[in-house]
């Protein structure tokens, strides 16, 4: 179910601009890895290289290797569409398909992957919505549009949609930054449950959140505006927040930077 990610020597570009430089790290399966760092340090860009979403941006390209267990995602015969079916993603702003019902939103990924019997679909949708702690709130209105839900519910709907296809890895790009504290708490609880089944990588600006939900934390930084972002260090979350090995990390975490 969950796989290990092994990144080596990865750089990403927007046209001629290098956004991240030579990043290597390992993401453990069935754990939560948090990416923290100042705006523009490339953590979101790096996240998007992990399911080949970076190259969707015009001019976006990547050098280096991302191994998912023993398969290189940037290998020559690899189909990016297939990669994205294996590595799911949840975005900063909840983005359920506005023209689809709640049911169809969750079923969307399954329908892409092939034909399912109606009863099978129903089971998977129910299981995914339960997995996203949303089932009790929406079970009576599965045919209503997903855009009618609250922001937090929409984000959990997006998580349900992402886990419905049983990905190996779940990437989350600041999944709570558009949500109120109560919805944020619900998502954080959910992340704790989901890590039993998936490898989770989460980008967050909220350091308390990183400390709360993650097992390991990676700190990214950039030397100056216009310079590529770099991985400063990655370690057990507890160590990063108590006794990081790099001074820059400690400065950032304790609010002394610049």
């Amino acid at each position: 179910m969950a796989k290990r990610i092994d990144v080596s020597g990865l750089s990403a570009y927007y046209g001629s601009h290098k956004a991240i430089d030579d990043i290597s790290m390992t993401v453990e399966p069935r754990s939560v890895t948090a990416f923290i760092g100042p705006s523009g340090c490339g953590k979101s860009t790096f996240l998007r290289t992990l399911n080949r979403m970076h190259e969707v941006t015009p001019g976006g390209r990547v050098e280096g290797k991302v191994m998912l267990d023993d398969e290189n995602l940037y290998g020559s015969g690899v189909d990016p569409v297939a990669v994205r079916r294996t590595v799911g993603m949840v975005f900063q702003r909840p983005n359920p398909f506005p023209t689809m019902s709640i049911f169809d939103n969750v079923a969307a990924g399954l329908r892409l992957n092939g034909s399912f019997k109606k009863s099978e679909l129903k089971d998977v949708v129910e299981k995914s919505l339960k997995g996203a702690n949303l089932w009790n709130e929406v079970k009576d209105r599965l045919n209503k549009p997903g855009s009618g839900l609250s922001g937090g519910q929409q984000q959990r709907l997006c998580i349900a949609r992402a886990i419905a296809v049983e990905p190996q890895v779940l990437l989350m790009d600041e999944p709570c930054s558009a949500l109120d504290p109560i919805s944020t708490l619900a998502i954080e609880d959910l992340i704790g449950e989901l890590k039993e089944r998936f490898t989770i990588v989460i980008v967050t600006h909220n350091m308390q959140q990183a400390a709360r939900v993650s097992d390991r934390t990676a700190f990214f930084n950039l030397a100056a505006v216009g310079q590529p972002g770099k991985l400063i260090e990655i370690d057990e979350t507890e160590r990063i927040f108590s006794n990081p090995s790099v001074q820059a990390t400690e400065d950032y975490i304790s609010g002394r930077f610049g």
Partner: protein
Amino acid sequence: MNTASSITDTPPPPRNDEHSAVSGKAVRPGDRIFLGLSRGSGIALLVIMAAIAVFLTYRSVLAISGDKANFLTTLDWNATGLDPKFGIAVLAFGTVVSSVIAMVIAVPVAVGIALFISHYAPRKLSSPLGYIIDLLAAVPSIIYGLWGALFLVPHLSGFYSWLNDYLGWTGIFSYSQGAARSLFTVGILLAIMILPIVTSVSREVFLQVPKMHEEAALALGATRWEVIWMSVLPFGRSGVISASMLGLGRALGETMAVATVLSPSFLINTSLLDPGGGTFAQNIASKFSEADEFGQDALIASGLVLFVITLLVNGAARLIIARRKEYSGAAA
């Protein structure tokens, strides 16, 4: 006043009246002028609409009450003499059929072109392509008419014979040799004429699809086509309908091109390929200059019917859009 000055730390400008900073005239002259202008424009629009409606209705009533035959079902147009007999059946049939043919051909092609420009073509290609499409919209309709009559008509005969060989048994596609000055030819020509407007409005709508909706589909492992199917088309649906209605409006009212291509006659052909038939606008254009006052009234009455048909079509389109409003992308 206090807040403002404490923030900027500059003294408030001296005022030469005894008003405090917040009191004063509720309406400034600029506001009043703009209010008058915009309200005046709104009222002018209503007055013009009402004037047109009253004029059309008045002259139409004169015509219809003088008609010695059924205005809706008569297959003839004889609006002179003591025994005028005229009806709009042929015109309504011709107008609706040629416009429907135009829509069936133009809308899928236009959506295809719009998708190609917005989502497939490299940027270097997409802007010149868009420019050419817009240029097509600027060609005057008489030019389309000439091209239709001199190029399209002779070249379609062969295609119509082929259609007749394979689909002639349906009756709709039967074709006896002769100039292809038929409703179907008109439909094809109208399709070409409405293609630019439908394309450019659809393209604008497709370009406005929020990135996050497309990324939602991409991240689930959708191919480019599946992204279009899941995100772009649903979001653009109401826009495409509106674009089609704009095109349909042009097709229903097109005059010169139809008058140049069609060989008119007052009968309803079961075959769309054989020459004959007529449309409201074409009939008005070809008869108006020679009509006496009653004849003009009769033509105006037919124009009123065209107006009503256009209104009904637009109303239907609005209903379609409104029915799924809660699912529209705008609500998100």
